[in-house]
């Protein structure tokens, strides 16, 4: 068991999988000579050479599509999309090709590829570089979408994603790269499609994924320490498929829930979580499911504006307090 960063967990896993399987290779912008915009791939070009670590031109549609084509022939490309914002340029290749090829041709060829990409705001990168648009992938049958929040899950889910025979969108987050956590010495691939209860509790269910799952966990611990509130935390880990049962089981126990998400509220990931809770725990719910999400604006650059627009531990705490008040469970 070692304590390492999320970045390190990703790096180590890529390296190990490349050592394990010759068919695994990395492809993306600035992942080789530059060692990755966020340095996930540092050192790998030197170790594996240009064949296995392929710097591409700035051509997201072209190189993502090339990865799809290579995967059709059985290679296992791991694509780095520098940030999820740039993935829009590749969306046709992902949604109309990677996600469709298995079904559209009647199951004759699969597309075993991983697309790693960070989302997230809060770095003053402005409206076009701060988005959380995982919804665009989570919505699409044929894709799998995972969104780990801890180094251990990052490792277990990246292993699973690389070994999976379907296209997997692997969501990272700029704010998670430097976070640390324990990672076992031997990690088994996680089961894609399963959420995890990362903290058991009885007062309220907090549901999150990626960065907000971590924030949710921290808020829950703090509420427990400071106010004796005993919140259950569900880390979705997989956005497609969505593990509704784990969410609903928790809410059937607690009777109320708050969803914490980094994306925009209307039509965001949280909408499905809230709707599913209503579907599966209707008779158990004591208050509407609250959603804490980003303000619906093109995210401004200036710090005071950006801060006001993004969800945080504070806004999550407010929503939890208000929900507990509504169900009369505030201590």
């Amino acid at each position, binding site marked *: 068991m070692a304590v390492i960063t999320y970045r390190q967990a990703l790096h180590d896993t890529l390296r190990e999988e490349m050592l394990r399987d010759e068919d695994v*290779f990395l492809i993306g912008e600035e992942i080789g000579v530059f060692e990755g915009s966020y340095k996930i791939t540092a050192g790998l070009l030197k170790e594996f050479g240009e*064949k296995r670590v392929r710097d*591409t*031109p700035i*051509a997201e*549609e*072209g*190189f*993502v*599509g*090339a*990865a*799809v*084509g*290579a*995967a*059709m*022939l*059985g*290679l296992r490309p791991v694509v780095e999309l520098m940030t999820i914002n740039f993935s829009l340029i590749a969306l*046709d*290749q992902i949604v*109309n*090709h990677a996600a469709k*090829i*298995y*079904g*559209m*041709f*009647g*199951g*004759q*060829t*699969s*597309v*075993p590829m991983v697309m790693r990409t960070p989302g997230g705001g809060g770095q003053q990168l402005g409206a076009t570089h701060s988005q959380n648009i995982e919804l665009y992938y989570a919505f699409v*049958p*044929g894709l*799998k979408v995972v969104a780990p929040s801890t180094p251990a899950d990052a490792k277990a889910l990246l292993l699973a994603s690389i070994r*999976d*025979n*379907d296209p997997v969108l692997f969501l990272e987050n700029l704010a998670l790269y430097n976070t640390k956590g324990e990672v076992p010495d031997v990690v088994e691939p996680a*089961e*894609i*499609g*399963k959420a995890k209860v990362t903290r058991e509790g009885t007062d309220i269910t907090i549901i999150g994924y990626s960065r907000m799952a971590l924030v949710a966990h921290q808020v829950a611990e703090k509420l427990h320490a400071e106010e004796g509130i005993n919140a259950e935390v569900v880390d979705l880990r*997989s956005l497609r*498929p*969505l*593990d*509704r*049962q784990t969410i*609903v089981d928790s809410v059937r126990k607690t009777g109320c829930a708050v969803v914490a998400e980094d994306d925009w509220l209307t039509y965001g990931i949280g909408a499905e979580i809230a*709707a*599913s809770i209503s*579907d*599966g725990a209707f008779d158990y719910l004591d208050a509407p499911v609250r959603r804490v999400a980003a303000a619906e604006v093109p995210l401004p650059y200036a710090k005071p504006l950006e801060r006001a627009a993004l969800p945080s531990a504070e806004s999550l705490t407010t929503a939890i307090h208000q929900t507990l008040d509504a169900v009369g469970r505030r201590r």
Partner: protein
Amino acid sequence: MATTATRSKPSTRSTAKSRRGSGAVRGSGGGSFAGESPELLQDYFHEMTLIRRFEERAAQGYTQAKIGGYCHLNLGEEATVVGLMRALRKTDLLFTNYREHGYAIAKGIEPGRVMAELYGRTTGTSKGWGGSMHMFDVESGLLGGYGIVGGQIPLATGAALAIDYRSGDQVVMCQMGDGTTNIGAFHESLNIAALWNLPVVFVVINNQLGMGTTVDKSSAEPELFKRASAYKMPGERVDGNDVLAVRDAATRLVEQARNGGGPALLECVSERLKGHSVVDPAKYRSEESVERAKQADPIANFRAQLIEAGVLDEDTAAEIERKAQAEADAAVAFADDSPHPDPSTLFDYTYATPVANDSRRLPADPVF
């Protein structure tokens, strides 16, 4: 990579000339079929005719509502189709656009399975999941027809990358239309292919029309093969109505790619005999352009030339045509007799690796 080498074809092979029809001396090695095996020439004639008959039956099936969706035919492009496919080995890989029935047949798929796909049956090339635009067959090396304009180009480039990665000796051919050279995926992919010296030959079927948009209204450089130079890639233009010219040019570029010579762009100038798809009456087309297309009919002309050259006589020609018709009819019968997919199979192909919590909900099913 060497410097730009955009060669235009010698004038005996130029479009202008052979487009005028059978009167022109066509130039396979100097006006005759010197050096060509008569069997092979008959075989080409047969295959071109089969594709013609097949497409006519497809149009009919569409009118009878046996076929749905969009249905784009290769009518008028048979010489290109057959010429290109003869340059490929069985193990070579082909990516095409949605106008691919003829390619599927010429790459070696049973016509019955191609028609069955149009009919949406389980015996079809994609088990009825793909339809006209989405044929696929691993064994024949057809890695898909694709309906999104340009969508096949990055994929084909990636397949070539995989071949290169594994030091294989296959070549990828990537077919597309003239209108498709204006989309971003074309540019990104040709650059990548050239940069990495991948074994892929890009083929533009320049039928001079997008849907109703002429090539000069859509491409600032309408001599499309010249676009290869933006990637220091060899580019060539060939008369798409001349099956041998197409075959020879394609073979040269395919073998060059196979031998590490890198990618190339081949433009085949041809004519679309009918509308963009079965439902398009093509009213926007000038009489002159329709007439020109008719005159250029690669099958009629090839037939006449083969007869003139003594490779075929009328009887043999008619016999081949009867055979082709019978094969097309048999394809229809096979398709018509094949089973429809069962609705219970709806969730069979969402994922290749089964996954927890996958949705298998029909529209009327509740979430819980």
